[in-house]
């Protein structure tokens, strides 16, 4: 009897592992496939490639438009991340610390854009920006991305602040620390993991944003997702695979940073 049930359990475990592997393969296959294709020697995307080369990476380095778009997207993501942190941190602290009526409603309103389809947001932003002459400009681009990153940032930071150990800020107060000192010496260090996560998330979201960028980048300001989008409209060579491979690696790097930060939180918190 006992042997039978153990065998049954083993069988169930095997099935579970197989199911997990299948799901992972399904999710990751497109991402992983990008790497071999980017080293293809063919002139178009095909599977399996008939030969191997690094020529599409060379082509990428010689493609001025892609390089400019890459640089712009990187800078944009950087500006957006910094601004997001500067705006969302005080906002999150204020929201987390105060207890006024309607606080939860306010938080819901602030984070509502997370639920809107970005096409709706993009259209709304476009309508407003056209009148202000912001389309195709850096300030316009930054503002547009902030609309998306700020709600994310607020959510992550509020969660982070919610998990701070109880009363440590009060304790610092009783020891004679001015509220600003409490923030600098206690709150900020304890919410560093949440800040790192927020920064990484903002960067990825801004760097990857297609729809809003498509609406308001115009033709002068070249951004990587938009340029890629236009590129694949006319051509299907493995250059896009090379770009994608680099983006996947970059994202992986950021996720690793986040993971480390979260691991850090576990060691910092009680």
């Amino acid at each position, binding site marked *: 009897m006992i042997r039978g049930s153990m065998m049954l359990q083993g069988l169930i475990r095997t099935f579970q592992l197989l199911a997990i592997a299948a799901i992972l393969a399904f999710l990751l296959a497109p991402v992983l496939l990008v790497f071999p294709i980017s080293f293809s020697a063919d002139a178009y995307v095909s599977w399996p490639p008939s030969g191997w080369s690094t020529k599409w990476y060379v082509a990428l380095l010689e493609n001025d438009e892609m390089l400019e778009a890459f640089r712009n997207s990187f800078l944009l993501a950087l500006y957006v991340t910094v601004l997001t942190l500067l705006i969302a941190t005080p906002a999150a602290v204020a929201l987390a610390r105060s207890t006024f009526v309607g606080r939860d409603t306010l938080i819901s309103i602030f984070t509502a854009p997370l639920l809107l389809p970005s096409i709706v947001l993009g259209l709304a932003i476009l309508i407003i920006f056209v009148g202000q002459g912001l389309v195709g400009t850096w300030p316009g681009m930054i503002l547009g991305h902030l609309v998306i990153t700020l709600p994310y940032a607020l959510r992550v930071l509020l969660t982070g602040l919610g998990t701070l*150990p*109880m*009363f*440590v800020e*009060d*304790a*610092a*107060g*009783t*020891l*004679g*620390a*001015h*509220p600003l*000192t409490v923030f600098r*010496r*206690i709150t900020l*260090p*304890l919410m560093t993991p949440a800040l790192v996560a927020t920064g990484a998330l903002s960067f990825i979201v801004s760097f990857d944003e297609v729809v809003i960028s498509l609406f308001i980048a115009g033709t002068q300001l070249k951004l990587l997702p938009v340029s890629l989008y236009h590129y694949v409209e006319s051509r299907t060579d493995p250059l896009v695979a090379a770009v994608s491979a680099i983006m996947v690696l970059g994202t992986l790097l950021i996720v690793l940073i986040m993971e480390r930060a979260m691991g850090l939180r576990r060691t*910092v*918190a*009680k």
Partner: protein
Amino acid sequence: MYLKVDSLEKRYGAFDPSVSNLSFSLAQGELLGLLGPSGCGKTTTLRMISGMVAATSGRILVGGHDVTGLPTYRRNMGVMFQSYALFPHMTVAENVAFGLEMRKHSKHEIAKRVESALAMVRLNGVGDRKPRQLSGGQQQRVALARALVFEPDILLLDEPLSNLDAKLRDDMRNEIREIQQRLRMTTIFVTHDQTEAMAICDRIVVMNKGRLEQIGTPHEIYETPATPMVADFVGRINRLKGTWRSDGAIDINGSMTIRASRPGARGAPVLVMVRPHRIGLVASGSAIPSAEHENVLAGTIRQVTYIGDTLQYSVEAAGARILVEKATTSAGDPFQSGAEVLLHWSEQDTLTFAADGER
């Protein structure tokens, strides 16, 4: 009076007030115990005194000055939190040093005082560790050191010894008392352990459901409790329900007559309370010493429980169960279950309370 709490009230939202109409005061250097069951508002009271939560109404005065509106960081009160609230990202030494740093002491001075504070709580040598690397009891002692080290005007301790073993608890209790007296720190010591409060406090406030039940010296609280709740809370006690007779005695169930030192109104219901260890126990038929002001009752022992330093007898007398406690001796128990005995206790040890309000 150095610290004065005047009709303090705290309401959280629409709930019943957590603390209401609370007034008491402490002389400089006094150690006041705040005693009461869980949820009675002890922590809330400390949080109002230290300024961490605003009182809904009432005033707090320190040295004659109204500090009700003063922010916490300007009150110079050392607070030890029930949940310790140590800074997880700092070492033990940095935790303890924080208050001194805020007061801009020199590096050398800080190091010296942190060291002696840690020695005081028996934690030498763990200064470089993070709080999470310590046991609960060790963390509690770090919290104590952190609250004491900057020698605040007022010390507020929220259950400072709850997580320590019996031996260390006694040591730390006496240590706190010694330091508190040496530095003449005005101190409030929150606890729900009545022996702890009795042992070191000059006076004790007993709280119940957010209200002050009684304030007095440990002796007053124990010997003349103002309410049944206080009598019940500060030690084991027998409860009997009866009625005042016209001759000033108390009738219980029509089968038992008891005398108290202070008679009450005839016909009124009365709650009688007697402490188990104030009841004498002799074999049936023997003479009772000084029988004049004694209540005497015949009964049968139903159960004997041995708990090391005391023996507890559950005695059936006049239809009720009465608990009697005696110190143990090496000679062994004098009475067995089923033995016929006489219970006797003096009129002074008979506490009586009007039995109308249900407490």
